[in-house]
Every structure is written in structure tokens, then in C-alpha cells.
């Protein structure tokens, strides 16, 4: 079952004590898990004129807890004032189980605002267990956000390749006011579903090298922590310079630009073509196994839709909600668009038109 924990500043927490404390957690959660999630709850200090949205830290991390590996989604956001009148933040963590992993990907779950609390009302209390709805990242092609922010959607492929090769993780510097979670979700759409839960990320800086660190941090260029780092460090990536100086090439970059389906061999080929530009310091430790089978977006979509249909009552409830209905309609529209129905329709129209014209012409001559 999925578990969740809320950590914020209260006059009295669930375990006693005041200040930053556990405000709510799923009943029966082991103490070790509660302590581990509490330690992930900090929100880095932002630059002086950052907006509330820019201060939000969304992260997917894999942490060790009592010999178990936990997949943790975190949404940490400023949350008004606490009981002492000082600035507060609310950290909402969800530990994701295998079923949710099968139906969803982490970026899409984090993009769904309805899943994440921004304010805690009332006293500290235990929460009931909840099932996560199925959410998958939209497979936009081209990757519009990457194209708009960096001028070429193909950079998503180059960054993805570097990230998967990096043993320690990287910080990708993004321009001010970029939608970092959207960038992440679009990049994740280039990965097959089963690999998306290996792709840890954060939308604010997280120190590299600890248990709680991630493969990629999308770091706003105004972040104070960025200024404190050596700009020449190999793990700080800037599009258009250093290891990302060359224009992205290869099938994966092409897919990011045009939406062409890449095969496993094309992903590997992309890696080989760009390997000369990869910094050896970054890529020393981890070997990224290119996906053996990268299914077409439409195929993955139908697989997930099938899984949703098979989930019985829970699926019925989800379908009943209006937001899910909208998503369902969008999926059907995307499915029909990607399946080429429109092309067939136009081709048929032309053929029929030609036949009618020929029939009329032959009739007139007769």
C-alpha cells in the first residue's frame, strides 16, 4: 500500500514536540520510515525574489530504510505562516508501491496538484491509506518545453544520456522562470515506463553523493547554492557549453524533436554518437543499459489503458471523477492523433474524389 507523511511546523506534532514535526502519516507506518521521510523534508533557501511556485521542491528519490529501498515522491512547498508567525513549509511525501509504479510515472504524479497538500489544517493525526491514481507523462512530440526553453528539443536526449551515464548525478542549469517539472516530465517521456522509476530527480538543488541525492537536479540559474559551486565542475551542466556544447544528434534527439519512435538500437546509437562529448569524470561509475525494447507511445498508452480498465471498482471510481474524465478524453484524442486516423481519412477522401471525378468524366463522354 502507498504510504504518505506530512511534515510541517505545528505547535504539537504526532510524536510530541513542536516546530517542524510530523503532522500526519499513514496509520501503521514504521517509526524508521517516518524518521527517514522527516529527514527528507527540508526546503533549500531560495533567492530573494523567488515566487512561491519557484520555491517548490518536487523530487523523486530512492532512499534506504531499514534494509529496504523506498521510492519516495516529495512535494515540499512554502505554506504561509506557522503557529509562531514565522514562514512555514509543508512537506508531503508519498512512498510508492509496485502497483502504482506499474500504472504511473513519478513526474506525472508530481504534476498532478490534486495529490499534494499545500496547507495543513487542524491537529496532527494519522491518515488512512490511499491508492494513487494512474498518471503518465504526456508524450508531447516535439518536447515543447525543451524547445521553448533551450531552442531545440533534442537537448532532452543529450541531457538524458549524460544523466544515465553519470555515477554521481548532475545539476542542469535552466534559465529563470523555466517550468522545471515539465522539463523533467518531457524528458522522462523518452524513457520506457519500466525505466522511469530508476530516474531520480529534483526541481531544486540537492547535494550530490548522499543516500537522498538524485540523478538530476533542475537548478534555476538564480539559485544561491549554484553561486556557491565551482561553475567549471563537471557535474554542473549548461546547455550549449562544456559537455553539452555540440548540437544533439541521433535518433533519440530526432524523436524528441519530431516524435519519431526510437528503437533500442537507436537509443544506443545515440549514446555512441555522443560518447566523445561525455565527460569521463561524470560517466565513470554507472553504466547505463540502453532499453532493450522501447515500445511505441501508442502501444504503451494502450497497455496502460488496459491496466486501468482491469482494475475493477477502483478504476470505476477514478473514471467517475471529472479530472480523470478530461485526462481520458485527452488520451483518446492523443491516441487517435498518433494512430494516423486523420491521414487515412484524408487519403480516402482524395481517392474517392478522384474516382467520382473519373466516373463523371467517363459518363459525360459517353
Amino acid at each position: 500500500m502507498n504510504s504518505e507523511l506530512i511534515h510541517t511546523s505545528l505547535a504539537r506534532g504526532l510524536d510530541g514536540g513542536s516546530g517542524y514535526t510530523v503532522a500526519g502519516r499513514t496509520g501503521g507506518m514504521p517509526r524508521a520510515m517516518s524518521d527517514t521521510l522527516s529527514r527528507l523534508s527540508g526546503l533549500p533557501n531560495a533567492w530573494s525574489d523567488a515566487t512561491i511556485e519557484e520555491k517548490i521542491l518536487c523530487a523523486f528519490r530512492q532512499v534506504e530504510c531499514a534494509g529496504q529501498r523506498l521510492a519516495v515522491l516529495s512535494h515540499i512547498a512554502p505554506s504561509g505562516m506557522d503557529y509562531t508567525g514565522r514562514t512555514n513549509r509543508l512537506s508531503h511525501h508519498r512512498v510508492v508501491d509496485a502497483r502504482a509504479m506499474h500504472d504511473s510515472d513519478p513526474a506525472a504524479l508530481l504534476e498532478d496538484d490534486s495529490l499534494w497538500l499545500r496547507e495543513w489544517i487542524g491537529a496532527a493525526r494519522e491518515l488512512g491509506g490511499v491508492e494513487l491514481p494512474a498518471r503518465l507523462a504526456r508524450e508531447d512530440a516535439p518536447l515543447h518545453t525543451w524547445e521553448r526553453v533551450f531552442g531545440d528539443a533534442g537537448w532532452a536526449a543529450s541531457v538524458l544520456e549524460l544523466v544515465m551515464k553519470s555515477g554521481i548525478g548532475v545539476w542542469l542549469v535552466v534559465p529563470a522562470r523555466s517550468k522545471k517539472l515539465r522539463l523533467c516530465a518531457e524528458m522522462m517521456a523518452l524513457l520506457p515506463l519500466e525505466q522511469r522509476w530508476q530516474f531520480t530527480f529534483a526541481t531544486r538543488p540537492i547535494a550530490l553523493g548522499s543516500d537522498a541525492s538524485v540523478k538530476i537536479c533542475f537548478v534555476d540559474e538564480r539559485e544561491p547554492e549554484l553561486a556557491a559551486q565551482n561553475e567549471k565542475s563537471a557535474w554542473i551542466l549548461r546547455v550549449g557549453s562544456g559537455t553539452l556544447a555540440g548540437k544533439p544528434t541521433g535518433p533519440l534527439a530526432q524523436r524528441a524533436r519530431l516524435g519519431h519512435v526510437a528503437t533500442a538500437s537507436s537509443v544506443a546509437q545515440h549514446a555512441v554518437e555522443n560518447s566523445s562529448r561525455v565527460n569521463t569524470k561524470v560517466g565513470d561509475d554507472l553504466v547505463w543499459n540502453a532499453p532493450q525494447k522501447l515500445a511505441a507511445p501508442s502501444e504503451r498508452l494502450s497497455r496502460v489503458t488496459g491496466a486501468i480498465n482491469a482494475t475493477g471498482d477502483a478504476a470505476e471510481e477514478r473514471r467517475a471523477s471529472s479530472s480523470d474524465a478530461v485526462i481520458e478524453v485527452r488520451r483518446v484524442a492523443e491516441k487517435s492523433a498518433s494512430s494516423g486516423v486523420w491521414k487515412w481519412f484524408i487519403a480516402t477522401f482524395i481517392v474517392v474524389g478522384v474516382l467520382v471525378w473519373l466516373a463523371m468524366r467517363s459518363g459525360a463522354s459517353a
Partner: protein
Amino acid sequence: MAEDSRLVGDPVAGPAQQLRFLPTRFDMGGAALDPEGARCTRVACPRCRIEFPRAMIELPSTFISVVGAPGCGKSHLLAAMTWGLRRERARAGACMVDTEPKLNARLHRDENILFGAPDSNEPVRLAKTEIAGDALLYRTVRIKGKDETLPLPLIFTLHVGAGANVGHSRSTDAMGVKVRGENLDDTLETDQSTIPGASLVVLYDNAGEHFLPGADESAQPVTRHLSQSRAILFVFDPTQDPRFRAATRMPESGGVNIRQDLVLTETFARVRHHRSRHAADNLDVPLIVVLSKADAWSAGAKIDLSVEPYLPNGGLDLAALKKMDRALRPLLESACPEFMTAVRAASSRVLIVPCSALGPCATSIAGAGALQAAGVRPSEICPQWASVALLTALPLEVDALANASLWT
């Protein structure tokens, strides 16, 4: 710490940090050479590999811990007291400068917020201190394969007597200190021949949550500095105690009630534990109880903070300090007897000092939704007695005052 840009990654400090190594090669000037031959100037702790100033090897260091419950005003006090000691060296008879400015970045941030725009009328406030995740406050290192989150200290070089005029009765030089006591007969003359004119002061400021009972975790040993502390500044917030509020006729506006005696007891339990001291041992760690937010209660307590306890020629006026201590004890004894019991059980050397980190200028920021946040206008900030508590804890003063019957 290696300087060559190719030597990145350390098994303890982290993959993004420069390599730490035990030097075996040195240049003619005595500086270590890293494996790539670059000249190294920075040093790090052999255990946690966190960078510290080289001056820590060269000068004596004094550790001072700032302790208190959540929301008691530790961060405001720290920013105000260090800002005061940076500016008022003549009056205080001592001054502090950053030993390595980049290591005190977090304090600079707070000082800039409060004192960086003295002409501004835009209300400001300090953010609540995070318990984890802020790179300016904490560093996570991997020791023996296990992650440990450690607090980053604030390190200053202390120059004693930097502003005093040589020849006056309260004068100091590089090799000695004179302190004037309660009356002329109490004047002490202490020859501190072993103490040089400069020393280091290492301050630790934690989130209040770290001092709550049960918060001392092996994965987050953020309060272990207590075992090394030469003095402990315990920030007691009278506005968080309902009986103190009543005794000083403060308005009841839904204030918070926190058992601060438990925080103090927990603190000294950790001191005993980490120093391996017997439960019956009398700890002689000087305990300075700082009664914060005095602007809110000083009128009700009938104390006057408008005159700072400094001598005309610089240095602390011990008579004024003693008088203030005597004025506040009966109030605490009657309003918070359990706290005073905990104080007596904690240490045999106690001094009570009031302070207001911001002065009588608290305003509220309108438009923050249903909740209104306390804020201050930088143009109105006027700390009162903010640096006094730290001055009493500084190395020379602690030793000198030990004989001056100030500590009771």
C-alpha cells in the same frame, strides 16, 4: 583539500567536493601540494572532511553553543549580536571578524536581511531555521558508509581590546586583560600571558527542534557540539511561558506555551552524555540564560534596557550585569520556578541576561492571508543588549568573570 580542478570527488565529503588527502609533498613555502602538483591552501577535518579555516590550527578556539526551544529567537539574536560586535568594537572592548567569510554565508544572509537596508520601510523577517536540506546550515557526509548530517559552524576571529585605549583602567593588550568589577575594590587584574590577542570563536546555531527530547539521532548528530562548548547560551523566550506573560502583564494573544525547562534539561543531559560525565557530577559549563524579546516584557518587568552595560572606556560593566541578574532572578523564581530548578541542576555557573534582538519595533505585515506574520522595518531595528550575552561568554571574560563573583 586538493586545488586541481581534476581532483573532484571525495569518499567522505561527497562526489562534488574537492579531494581531501594527507599531504606528503610541500613547496618551499611549506604549502601542501596535491597529487597533481597544485599548491593547496585550504584544510579540512580529518574525520568529517568538512572545510574549516586554517586559523583553527594556528589560534586557540572556543566553542559556544546557542540553544533554545523552537521560535525563541536564536537566529535573530545571533544575527544581532554578531552584527553588534562587528560595529561596536570600541564600546564592547572586543570585536569579531569572519575568519573565512564564505563559511559564514548563512549568517551574512540573516544580517543582510535585518541590517542590510537600514533605510527601508519594507517589513522583513528571518525564515524559520530548517532542520535539514539547507546547504548553508548543514552538510551531509558519508562516514564508514553511513550518511551523517552535520551542522556547519560559524567561525570568527576575536580581537580582544581592539578598541580600548591603552592606559585606561579597563584596558587590554595582546597579552593581558583587566576587568573592572562591581566596585573599585573588586577590580581584577588577570595576567593572561598564555592567551594571545586573537582567538577563534566557533558558534553553533541549531533549529530549536534539534534540542527537543528524542531528537538526538545518530544519523543527524547535529547537537554533538554541546560536548565541546566552553559556554552555553540558553535562549529563554518569556513570551512562550504563560505565567511569565501574566507576571509581566503581557497581552494574551494566543501565545505559544512551550516547556522550556525540558529543553534545558535535555540539553545538559546531552552535555553529560557526550562528555561521559556521571549524573551526579557538577557541570561547570558557564550557562548564560538569555531572556529574549525583552522589548515585549521589559516594561512589565520594570527593567530598563536603554543603557547598555558598557564602561565609558570600553568593556562590560560587571556591576550593571550583576544588578540586572539580581533583578531578573526573583521574577523567574516566582513565574517559572521549574525552569529555575532546571537551571540550578544544570550548571553551577549561571548568569541571566535580557536582550532584544530587534528593539521595540515589532510590526505586523498585513496582507499575508488570514495569518499575519511578525515583521520589522529595517529602519526601526535597534537591538538592545544583543551582544552582551556573547561578550560574557567570550574566552577572556569567562575566565576573568569566574573570579568576580558574577556567576551564581
